[in-house]
């Protein structure tokens, strides 16, 4: 693989990037994770019940992007064509050809042609078998991975922004504001989060975004202490004093002189926050209070595995997926932590 020749102007960052790369395990984990994540972003092209490309009567159709009624291909119904229907398939193939994605199921496609009752074991058609509704497990994993990571990234991003702002304000101003903030944090963080989410989602129908907001209410606290401590420390640094003495505005000082120091702690923590977010979402889905029922989810697959112990391919495949994903993130996190270890690289 061609290594990117990142040209970082700041030698401190350059050295940190070097240190990150020298941790081979974390470096390769990052690459593997990025490849998996980017592939999963194109899940519709890997696992779908619609063909990628249809050639019919000398014309090209892209069913993934556009909905075509069955009549387009000489069928009877005005509704969208069901390309898995043998009748439709035959109609098209008389006058053209079909290009299928590698997995001919989406996460919610039910395979009615199973040779065994669902859950069906792995076969040439369903690579990792099906769940007890006859849905393809491989497709479910790909879509579930994507939504888990996206959810985790969003949650990490928003909770970092909120956490950094609040931690910065507390640490910079100190005194009463800090005291009040810390006490509020202690009370807020002692709430039983899982129960609250279960209660809230019983009267708000959870969607991707509402769930994100509900979880954000409790996940922003992770970084506050770190950033606050870093700001408290920096506040008395001579270069901050010197900047004050030059009349630099407070927000500028916070942003230019203090935030970069706090970013070290923040970036070090990001992979672990992402990990935590993925696990929380999975467990909520597992107990049935997570994402709406029609969305793909790793947690629900875990639940299926638990309910169908006689079908080990369910439990094993989702377990492997989760393990690989979380392990990769932990490895990346370790490498980032090494890279930002000031005792190693700033002295």
């Amino acid at each position, binding site marked *: 693989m061609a290594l990117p020749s990142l040209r970082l102007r*700041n*030698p*401190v960052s350059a050295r940190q990037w070097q240190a990150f790369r020298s941790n081979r395990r974390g470096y390769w984990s990052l690459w593997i994770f990025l490849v998996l994540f980017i592939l999963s972003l194109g899940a519709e092209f890997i696992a779908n019940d619609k063909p990628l490309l249809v050639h019919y009567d000398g014309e090209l159709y892209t069913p993934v992007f556009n909905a075509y009624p069955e009549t387009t291909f000489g069928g009877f119904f005005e509704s969208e064509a069901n390309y898995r229907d043998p009748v439709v398939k035959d109609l098209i193939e008389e006058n053209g050809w079909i290009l299928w994605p590698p997995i001919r199921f989406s996460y919610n496609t039910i395979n009615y042609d199973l040779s065994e009752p669902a859950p069906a074991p792995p076969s040439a058609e369903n690579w990792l078998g099906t769940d007890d509704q006859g849905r393809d497990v491989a497709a479910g994993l790909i879509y579930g991975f994507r939504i888990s990571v996206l959810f985790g990234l969003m949650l990490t991003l928003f909770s970092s922004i909120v956490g950094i702002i609040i931690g910065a304000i507390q640490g910079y101003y100190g005194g009463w504001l800090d005291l009040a903030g810390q006490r509020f944090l202690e009370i807020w963080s002692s709430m039983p989060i899982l129960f609250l989410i279960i209660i809230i989602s019983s009267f708000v129908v959870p969607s991707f975004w509402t769930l994100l907001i509900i979880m954000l209410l409790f996940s922003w606290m992770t970084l506050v202490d770190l950033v606050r401590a870093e700001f408290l420390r920096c506040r008395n*640094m*001579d*270069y901050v*004093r*010197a*900047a*004050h*003495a*030059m*009349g*630099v*505005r407070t927000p500028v000082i916070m942003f*230019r*002189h203090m935030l*970069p*120091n706090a970013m070290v702690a923040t970036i070090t923590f990001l992979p672990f926050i992402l990990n935590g977010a993925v696990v929380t979402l999975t467990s909520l889905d597992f107990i049935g209070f997570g994402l709406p029922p029609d969305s793909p989810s790793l947690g629900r697959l875990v639940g299926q595995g638990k309910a169908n112990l006689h079908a080990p391919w369910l439990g094993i495949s989702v377990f492997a997926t989760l393990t690989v994903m979380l392990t990769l993130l932990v490895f990346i996190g370790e490498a980032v932590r090494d890279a930002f270890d000031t005792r190693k690289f*700033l002295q």
Partner: protein
Amino acid sequence: MSLLSLRGLTIRFGQDVAVDNMSLDLEPGHMLALVGESGSGKSLTALSILDLLPDSASWQAEALSLDGENLLGLTENRKRSLRGGRIGTIFQEPLTALNPLHTVEKQISESLFVHQGMSRQKARKRCLELLGQVELPATMEMLGRYPHQLSGGQRQRVMIAMALANDPQILIADEPTTALDVTVQETILTLIKRLQNELNLSILLISHDLAVVSRFADDILVMHHGKKVEAGPTAQVLAEPKEAYTRHLISSEPRGKMPPLAEDAPVLLEATTMAVTFKEKRKSLFSPAPLMRAVDEIDLSVRRGETLGIVGESGSGKSTLALALLRLVKSQGQILMDGTDLRQLNHRQMRGWRSRLQVVFQDPFGSLNPRMTVGQIVAEGLAVHASAMSSQERDGKVIQMLDEVDLPAEARHRYPHEFSGGQRQRIAIARALIMEPELLILDEPTSALDRSVQYQILELLKSLQKKHDLSYLFISHDLKVIRSICHRVMVMKDGKVVEQGDTDAIFDQPQHDYTHKLMSAAFA
């Protein structure tokens, strides 16, 4: 015959040679001072005698013997019996060298248990005896104290007691007084000297301060860049230094005086009844928090082109006074500059005045943001006070400032960690100068630097003062530096001014007892 003899010591860190073919001889009952600037390898040399070098170092020596016994190739057990047994060690920073969770008794008796297997009773008796020897009260109360309950000088005495516990033949003192105030420094060195004579100890004293050492040591060994430069009896080395480097070290002791100020120099800044109070922790929930007066009703004035020195030991409130004048801490009183009381201005109004009043801090490592280039650091003030300037003009100005502090123009593309302590202090001065200030507050600007670097910075400050007609407020605990650069001196103790006047008057005829004590410690 010498008691400790070391021949051909070489210490390497990877490819870098830190100590090169070093030899030394310690005579019985003598005090040998190992003198050199930071990074000259003097501490490494001492550590190699005890085989306590960090793992990253590799070392070899042709010969190392104590009292005729070869110390090379000893087993780890034998080496341990040497450390703390026949060779005692005192480290620089007593706060970190003492275990904060152990009482004085535990600290001292630990090595008694290890080396002599004493019973608790006997060890306690020995501890009390040792406390007496280092001139601490030999009471049970003292034995029960923890390091944080002791002053810096007391901690260093406990360290000495620990080193003496097993009747060593040799005492290695690694910068034993660098972290202490001048007056305390004096008493500790006198104590070490007394112990040397009473117990017939041989002492290896490591120091960067030639002046301090020359008053106590019998012999001197000068080191530079890991090499031995010159060695001999103290008086001989000081009177007739053979090597250029030794002469350079001796001549970089601050000396000279400031030429007198013009009689009609106008007053630039006048502060009256300045006071800063901090709330201490309240004793009970309902009692008001007691006030700590860090700065207590101080009047001062600085004239144009004048340097006012503020002297005092740590904790005397001199740095707090500086921060109060800069309006970086809350204060009471009046700060008059050109007829305007700076204390009445709000933040926005103050911003305009800030460029006229700049500051340089002590620690050249903490005062520059490690994540900004030198160019960005120096130009930061321009972004606030000359925001209309084009980036080209700004760059030109930065180059000009770097030139004024004798740094090359290319320096602006590099980062602070690539520079030495003295160069960093130059950068900090450039950052302050670019604002074209009238008054520069220098808070211990040379304390963290070696003497010869210190000398260069002082010369730079003098020439800048002449060129720009600057006024300085020079804060220092080092009386020699103060004498060489200040027109007037103010002596502070516990937040109050003890004495102030012209430099000559204060130094030649100190009126106050405390000033007397400071002087005799510094110029004995």
